Structures are given as C-alpha cells and as structure tokens.
C-alpha cells in the first residue's frame, strides 16, 4: 500500500514537473492572450453527430441505457401515439417544457421509427456553451444549437435543412423551462419551421417531468438568500410517474401566418394538458365551439395571482377538482 502510494506520488510529481513540450506551453507575458477560438454555441459543428457510426452508437445507448433508465425513473403513461402511425415523416414535435429531463423522456417514448431519426433543438447558450457539453448533447440527444433569445436566421436555416433532409425535430416553443410548472407563451419557431418546410407539427404535452428533475436554483430559480426553508430537492433526480400525450398532427392553413399557427399549436398543447386531468372527451369538450369551458384555451398557463396560488393550483390532484364531467 505504502509503495503504491509512493508510486502515485512520484507519478504526480513527474506530471507536475513535466515541462514543455510534454506539458502545455506557458504564454509569454508580453504577448496578449487572444480570446480562445471557441467553436461552441451556434458555431459548434454538430454534423458529426448525424453520421452513421454515431447514430448507431447513440441508438445503442438510447435503447439499452437511456430508455430502461427512463422507464425506471419515470414510468410513463403514453397517450396519442396512434397519431404518429400514419403521419408522413418528418414531423416537428412541439412540447411544453418544465425540466431538463423532458428531452430524454420524450425521445424514449417516441416510436422507434422516429426515435433514431430525431434531432432536438437545444439552447445554444446553455447546452452548447462549452465544448464538452456540445459534444455530450450532440451525441446523446442529437441536439442542435438554436438561438432562443431572438430569431436567428442561422438557427432557422440549420433546423429547416435538417427537416428537409428527413430528420424529425423536437422543439420546445416556450424557449426555456417553465419557472413554476405552468406553461409559458409559445414562441413562433415551431410554427415558422412548419410553414417553411411544409411539415406537420405534432403537439406534445409532458406532465409530471418537473417532479423527476425540478428546475434547480442555480439555473434560474429564486435568488440566493430567502427563509432557509427552501426545497433542497431542486436539481436532483427523483422517481416519479409522468404522462406523455401526443396530439394529432397539425398543418398551417394556407392563409394562416406563423403567429396564428403558433397560437393554435399552443392551444392544442393546452387541450392535451386538460386531458391529463380528465380524459380525451372532456378535454375536447372544454374547447369545443358549442360549449366551451371559460378560459380552457389558456388554462395551461395557470391562474392569475400570487406565486403560491399558482403553485397551489398546479399541484392540485385531479380527484380534488370536483369538476369531472361524464360524457353526455
């Protein structure tokens, strides 16, 4: 043991004492250091992640590691998958976004013919800000960087080219995870791409994922300080059931612009969200033209009011709602 320790120390000392060219060169004091040329963010070249050997490796990992792990961690109730059976690929999956775990959970619930031919639009400033993250997410999720803070022609061009090349696209039109669990207004990216490429949008509602991996304080939660009674569970994986609901594919009408179409996609996701707490029929009825439930189209955004009331309404179990309606 002692000799092993001695050997390790010697190795460490040797490594530490290594000099150029064995070690990295030092930088002359008189030479200003240029900003490192970082090919990350939108500049990251992710083309490699769609080459056949990488796709094969990703499929092996996805089917043999990620999928079983997801099943174990977040047993999923999947509804509406029949909508995908006859749709002409590729499609654009537009889903609500509450947790980082959304992407792998959604990918693992996709039918196999979609699962391995799908890229994920991921925030360039978060998932592609470091080389190692860029490599990791490109490989693991076939992620591509997109600009979420503003419309970026390059991001849009890249996504459109991939769709035209036969790749399905997962996009979270909210532009980021929900801060409180309620859905945020949809941005027009998914609708724009659908109009540009002529491919259908499949609305997806992910329920319960924020319980599996809540948004952590470091990534945009409450600021430091507070009462000291804040949850310590944020940012940790927890086992919790989830639901994934696919809606019927949607295409923009000929006279419908991207903004209007985006609103329609958001409404479709809202309908799916109601389906979680009731059933398909109740959800459909709530937004029917004949007898709409007041505010149903925006119900997924939660009630107006203080944060605690929004949180209270969000976590209210379906059974306590008392507004269940039986089919007529």
């Amino acid at each position, binding site marked *: 043991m002692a000799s092993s320790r001695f050997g390790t120390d010697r190795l460490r000392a040797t490594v530490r004492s290594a000099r*150029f*060219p*064995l070690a*990295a*060169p*030092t*930088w*002359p*004091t*008189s*030479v200003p250091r240029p900003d490192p*040329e970082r090919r990350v963010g939108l500049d990251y070249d992710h083309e490699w992640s769609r080459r056949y050997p990488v796709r094969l490796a990703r499929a092996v990992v996805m089917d043999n590691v990620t999928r079983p792990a997801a099943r174990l961690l977040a047993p999923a109730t999947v509804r509406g998958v029949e909508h995908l059976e006859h749709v002409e690929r590729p499609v654009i999956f537009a889903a609500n976004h509450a947790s980082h775990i959304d992407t792998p959970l959604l990918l693992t619930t996709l039918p196999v013919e979609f699962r391995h031919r799908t890229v994920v639009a991921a925030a360039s400033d978060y998932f592609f800000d470091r080389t190692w993250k860029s490599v990791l997410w490109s490989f693991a999720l076939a992620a591509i960087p997109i600009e979420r803070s503003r419309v970026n022609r390059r991001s849009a061009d890249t996504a459109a080219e991939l769709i035209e090349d036969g790749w399905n696209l997962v996009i979270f039109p909210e532009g980021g995870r929900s801060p409180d669990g309620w859905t945020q207004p949809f941005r027009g990216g998914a609708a724009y791409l659908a109009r540009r490429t002529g491919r259908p949008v499949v609305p997806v509602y992910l329920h319960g994922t924020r319980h599996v991996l809540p948004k952590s304080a470091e990534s945009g939660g409450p600021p430091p300080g507070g009462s000291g009674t804040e949850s310590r569970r944020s940012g940790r994986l927890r086992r919790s059931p989830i639901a994934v609901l696919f809606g019927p594919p949607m295409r923009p009408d000929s006279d419908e612009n991207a903004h209007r179409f985006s609103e329609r996609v958001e409404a479709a996701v809202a309908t799916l969200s109601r389906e979680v707490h009731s059933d398909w029929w109740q959800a459909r009825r709530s937004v029917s033209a004949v007898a709409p439930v007041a505010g149903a189209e925006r119900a997924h955004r939660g009630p107006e009011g203080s944060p605690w009331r929004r949180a209270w309404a969000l976590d209210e179990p379906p059974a306590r709602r008392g507004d269940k309606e039986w089919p007529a």
Partner: protein
Amino acid sequence: MSRRPGFVLEVDRSTPPTLVWRGEGFGLETLPTGSRVIYAPEPVQPLEDPYAAIRHALLHPLGDRDPLPALLRPGMKLTVCFDDVSLPLPPMEAPDVRQMVIETVLDMAAEAGVDDVLLVAALALHRRMTEDELRHALGDRVYDAFAPNGLLTQHDAEDPDNLLFIGETAQGEEVEINKRAATSDLLVYVNINLVAMDGGHKSVATGLASYRSLRHHHNPHTMRHSKSFMDQPSSELHSSNWRMGRLIAESGVKVFQIETTLNNDTFPSGFGFLQKREWEWSVRDRAKYLATSATLGKTPPRLARQVLHSLRSPHALTSVQAGEVEAVHARTLEHVWAQQGVDVEGQTDILTMGLPYICPYNVNSIMNPILVACLGLGYFFNMYRGKPLVREGGVVVMWHPTRPEFHPGHHPSYIDFYEQVLPETVDPSRMHKEFEESFATDPWYVHLYRTGHAYHGVHPFYMWYWCAHALAHVGRVIVVGGDPRAVRRLGFSPASSLDDALEIASDVVGPSPTLTHVHNPPLFMSDVR
C-alpha cells in the same frame, strides 16, 4: 481570423523554449530572458483561381508591353525560360507554379500558331535538373510534349556555340547570355520570387549567363557592397544585373517577364508546428514535435535527409504579374514584402539562427559545410533592409551539425574547395585572386557540369562570396553542435551548447550582450531601424 503580421517577442520567464532547426532535425532551446525572437507574418491568403489570375496577368501586362497574345504570331521564334530546381524551398506540392504559368503561355502560343517554341531551364552555373525534377516543375503534360523532341533544354553556360556576347555595360561588365534566348523574337521568363533577391533583371542576366558574364557581379567586392542583396536598391549585385538587363533590352532582346510570389506556408500539416508560435502549440503539435524530433534524432542522417527532402511545401500562389521586367519586379517586391516583412527596432549583439536541412543549392542533395556557411551568413544574415540585424563586430550563432559530407555528383568542386582552398584561406578576396580561375576553368569540373548533374567548378567560391558581407561585418561566427573540425575549417568557432556559445561570444560582445533569434520557418525579411 485575419492574418497576423510578424512580430518581435521579448523572451521572459513565461516564454516557452524556442524551436531551432539543427540540420536534419530540430530541437527546443531556452533563450536567455530579455532576448528577442522574430516571428514571420502568417501566410497571405492565396489566389482563389491561380489559372485565372495567370491568364489575367498575361492579358493585362505591366509597363511597356502588349498582352502576350498580341506578341505571338506564326513563324516566330519563342523561348520560354524558367527558374530551376533551387526554387521554391522546399519544392512545392504539384502543380508547381511554373507548370501553371508555362501551360497558360503554351496555350496562348498554340492558339497563335507558334511552332518554334523552346523551353530552357535557366540554370546559370547550377546543376542540371533531373527528369523527375523537370517533370515536377513543369508537369508531365509539358515534359512529354517537349522533352522527347529535344525542345526542353537546360542552359549550358559552357557551350560556346549557344552563347551570344551582347556587349559591355558602361562599367565594363561583359554580358553574354544564352544565344537561343537572345535571338528569339520573344523571350518569356517564368520566375518564382520566393525571396526579394530573386527576379527582375537578375532572371535573365544571371540565369541565362555564362561565367564570363557572371564573374562581374558574383565576386567578393560586389557582394561586400550589397547591403543587402535581398534589398535591390541597396544591392550592388542587383545594380550590376540591372545594368546588364538594360543592355540586353537595348540590344533588342524582347523579354516578357512573368513573376510570381508564394505565401510562406512552408511545411505540410504533419510538420505545421514548425511554423507556429511555440506557446500556441496544441497537444497535437506537441505530440508531433516529440514524435518527429525523436524519430529524426535516431534516424541516420542519410535517411533523415531523404525523408525531409521528400516533403512538399503547400506554398500557394499569392500574386502573378507579367510584362516589362522592371515594372513587373516592382510590383512583385511589394507582394514579397507584404508576406515577409517584419519591423525590427535596433540591432543586436548576438544573432542566433537554426539552420535547416535545405538551401537553394542542395535540393535532393547534401548540405555540405560551405552551404551551411552560405545559408547562415549568406541568406539568413542578409534577410534585412536598412541595417543588418546584428551590429558591426557582433556575433552570429548558428545551429547545424555541419558534417564534412559532400554529394560527389552534385558538388565535386566543393570537395576540392573544402580540402584545398579553405585550409589556405577563408578570405573571399584572396581566394578570388588565387584560386577562383583555376576552379572555374578546370576541364573536369566543366565536363561534370555539362554532362552530369554537377554545380559548376566556380560555384563553391560564389557561395563563399555570398558570405562576404557577413564575414566583413561580424566579429565571430559560432556553430552550435557542429563538427568541430569542419567548423574550424570554415574559420568559425565550434560550441557544444548555447551556453557554451554565449560564453565564447562574451569575448567579443562582453558579458551582457543583447540577443536576437531568427525563428524559422518560415522565411521573413527584417526591416531594421
């Protein structure tokens, strides 16, 4: 990212060791704190479509010249001359720029119906090129069309039947050049301007001249007064060539000069680290350095030489201009300086330089001790404008193994020069007076030059004269890692290490000298103020 200019680094404690060539190998040297290291500018962006640029240059000539097609007609005598194997260094990846230019010229000649076309390698007193070298320079298409018909020739400076005496300049310099070239209706000269010394009137007045003509500027007096011969306005070598060139033009020889410049992308990617700044070496660069330096270090010099001489440079064309000689050359020099110029403030006490395995006169050959001196004191020392990098009375330190090895086929007279002349004197003036004539006219050397692949008998003298300015300027020359006997034979001091060299130099420049290191590759020109 935009191209970075050359710059002068001041060595501090954070500066990593500096790459130094040592002949057929290289290593890292830690220079004293406070030393300066001069780094070349980064490569100029090459021309996107070289063939289109060449065609454009031929159709839009500079100076008092018509476009090339207007100068071509059926029944005319056209001679196309081109620079020999000494350029570029290392030989460039195919297609060589000479091939691209000559193919374009020949396309135009064929279109104009010119039948009498002869290609001439402008060797001066250099060795004749081999078939492989000619094929590489001209391409198979040109070689196969001309060589089998005897229409691809190499200038023979010892062939009295094919030399024409043009006349004498006002200074009494005799001008004698290739007869075929001189009697052609049009002489097209295809040049590669790797350094500022090349091109201009020197192309024809030197490349196609005889010993009778060359001796007027290839002598110790001229070379000592060329400060430097890389700076045409300050070069007596060039002044003489310009006088001769103007006389050639006045005699009615119509020269259509085509000059090209290359960027300084010198080594292929496997050796790319050689031309990078050491503190920017990536892990891959360091791994390549360790692998190649260790391998070359353990490889017999002969084999290492073969490996290194097989490298092809990724040099790329950065400009091409054609037309009247002086107008063309002025534009060419602008491009050369744009690629190679580095501003340097002040001179230094000690100038250090690592010498590589190659110089213009040992392509596919051996760098013998005379060429070592020529490369260091002739070329690298003279790569300046204004003032030499090293002060008068300073010290030059060079790294090279300087083995007393010679290529018997290429450099036969060098062997006798080394054995007979250098033991007697290292003074260029004395060897010029006492020994040059006998070597220049020795029938055996003449025979080897004309029928084999040997440099002319007088060539080692010229290489020594190339050092004349440096020898008169510096107080001492030290060779680190060189064969002590060979180094002493050259009149230099051997040293086993840089510390050793600095100790020896302290006798001349004192205990606290300033030191400037010339980092190569790639080549650069210092503009010393």
